[in-house]
């Protein structure tokens, strides 16, 4: 008799659990518009959409963020902003640090899917490595968003500043300064980071847009940057080969900091030497205000990107209509704009 009681209780518990799930209902499917590039305001959700997203996540679902790394200011700021907004809206979120290693991203996506992620926002380190994992997750109904790039937003929304836009903005800042302060003539070192394909686009665009603004500028070469140590070493070496270098354009601010140390050590005039970076880190802005060496940077809006990631996830989970690709605006930061 007791055995029958246990079976009956088991059946009731199973029914209760199933009943809980069936209340959520089938996942509503969003409509993604591909006819235009979306703007940030297209992603702002209504309170009804936030409530719908909460329902879609259910009790165990969550939004996953696979960050490129958490060790640079930009990449740490994006998930931080997303987490803050998720907390405000009461949405569960998990963040994974890829440490800029493409192979770690595959495992992260698989783990998130297994744990019940309903939407995953990914900062792609290398699209070739992570492509299959993204498609597999999307095949299981998980919304795959991408930030800092767009090609792998398979079943979701791509939110990105364009690397070409970033590079061009930095190139234009440097080119304008060369045209205005150096009569269009300068010897330019470009700090690159060829490990990452998107950064190569950025570096090439720096050169292209700089040359448009200052055709007389000479590019002495592309050197390894990306970190302060790389920037410092590369510039120390480059200055031995090309002591005439008087402009440095870097694919990020970190490399530019190192370059400044090398320029200082080489005795370069801080008012006659121009350094431009990308990322608009706090340190970069402080240096720009001082007006020595560091003359400009490009704001990649990491906080806004993080917020847009969370807004886009809500739109997808709520089954709303949203643009497939959304552009994050970039802003040129110079001494004038900081006044």
């Amino acid at each position, binding site marked *: 008799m007791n055995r029958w009681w246990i079976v009956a209780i088991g059946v009731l518990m199973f029914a209760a659990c199933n009943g809980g799930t069936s209340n959520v209902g089938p996942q509503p499917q969003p409509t993604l518009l591909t006819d235009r590039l979306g703007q940030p305001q297209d992603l702002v959700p209504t309170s009804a959409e936030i409530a719908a997203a909460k329902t879609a996540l259910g009790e165990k679902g969550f939004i996953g963020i696979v960050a490129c790394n*958490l*060790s640079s*200011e930009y990449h740490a700021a994006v998930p931080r902003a997303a987490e803050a907004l998720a907390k405000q809206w009461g949405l569960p979120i998990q963040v994974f640090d890829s440490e800029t290693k493409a192979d770690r991203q595959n495992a992260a996506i698989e783990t998130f899917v297994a744990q019940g992620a309903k939407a995953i926002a990914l900062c792609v380190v290398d699209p070739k490595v992570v492509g299959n994992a993204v498609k597999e997750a999307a095949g299981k109904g998980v919304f795959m968003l991408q930030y800092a790039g767009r090609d792998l937003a398979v079943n979701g929304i791509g939110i990105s500043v364009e690397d070409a836009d970033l590079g061009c903005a930095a190139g234009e800042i440097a080119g304008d300064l060369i045209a205005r302060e150096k009569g269009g003539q300068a010897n330019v070192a470009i700090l*690159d980071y060829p490990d990452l394909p998107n950064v190569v686009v950025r570096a090439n665009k720096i050169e292209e847009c700089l040359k448009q603004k200052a055709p007389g500028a000479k590019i002495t070469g592309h050197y390894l940057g990306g*970190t*302060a*140590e790389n920037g410092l070493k590369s510039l120390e*070496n480059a200055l031995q080969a090309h002591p005439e270098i008087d402009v440095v354009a870097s694919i990020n601010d970190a490399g530019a900091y190192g370059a400044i*140390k090398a320029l200082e050590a080489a005795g370069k005039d801080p008012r006659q030497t121009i350094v431009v970076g990308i990322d608009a*880190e706090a340190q970069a802005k402080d240096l720009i205000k001082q007006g020595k060496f560091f003359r400009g940077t490009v704001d990649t809006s990491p906080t806004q990107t993080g917020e847009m990631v969370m807004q886009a996830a809500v739109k997808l989970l709520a089954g709303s209509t949203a643009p497939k690709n959304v552009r994050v605006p970039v802003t040129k930061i110079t001494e004038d704009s900081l006044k």
Partner: protein
Amino acid sequence: MTTTSTPEASTRSRWTRQRVLDFLGENGFIVIFVLWCLFLELATQRFATEGNIFTVLRQAAIVSIVAIGETLVLLTGAMDVSLAAILGFSGIVTASLMTTANLPPWLACFGSIGAGGAIGLINGLVITKIKINPIIATLGMMSILTGLALMYTGGQSVYGPALDRIAFLSSGGIGPVKMPVLVMFALYALFYWVLSRTLFGAHLYAVGSNNKAAWLSGLRVERIRIVTFMLAGLLAGLGGVMQVARLGAASPTMGDEFLFPILTAVILGGVSLSGGKGRLFNVLIASIFLVTITNGMVLLDTSVNAQRVVSGVILIVALSLDRLRQRER
């Protein structure tokens, strides 16, 4: 027409060949280093200038200082993969103590070096007392330190005008010889003396050559190993302070870039991975050699990607000479 060789000539030829192989085996990478320097000077006319030589030495300084610690650890037959992380961590400690806690520079620097030593001590205790494999233990420590640095800084750099007060540790010096270079040579002289003239140095080699025999002969093997890890931690801590002085800022992953160069310098310098063998002087040369590869490639105006190819080729050729010697023996 045929030629015949006498047994005497054949013996002499074998002897000469053996001598050449021995010489290359003992000094293989130094030969490649010298040839590389000659090539660079002939090809660029800029390599052997005073400015460039001191640039190379300055770039080699921090890696070579931390490599002393790795050499000491390897000589005992262990390995420490956390030294680069200790460097990064102590860099964050230095910068934070100076910018946030407003401590005087000397106190912040000694505090950071002491923190490095304390971490080394923990490594040594974990390895000798709990008997965890040195690579696993220090790998764990590396992860802990990187995580702590990231948690504390939130991924952001620590910087501020206060750090200018230790700039002399990078830009100060005697004439063109900057402080890092002076410190590097001073430490190499000191540890050369320690390894070749003191009982502790002899014990280090003995522990690495045969751990059990050293213990049976009455050496306090565990204590020697603990002291070695602590010294390595202190040197990595010093490296962190010097790196902050050099960059004027500290980032939580600052140490990451040092792991590969430190290990490469020590291995290229011929320190045996199984312990008991290795010359400190060769580690110094290897550290400088590694820097000249990148420096030379920039002087040659080659692309960043080509630099990596050539770096790999040079390293493989240099290490092949060492293997050649071992095979011949």
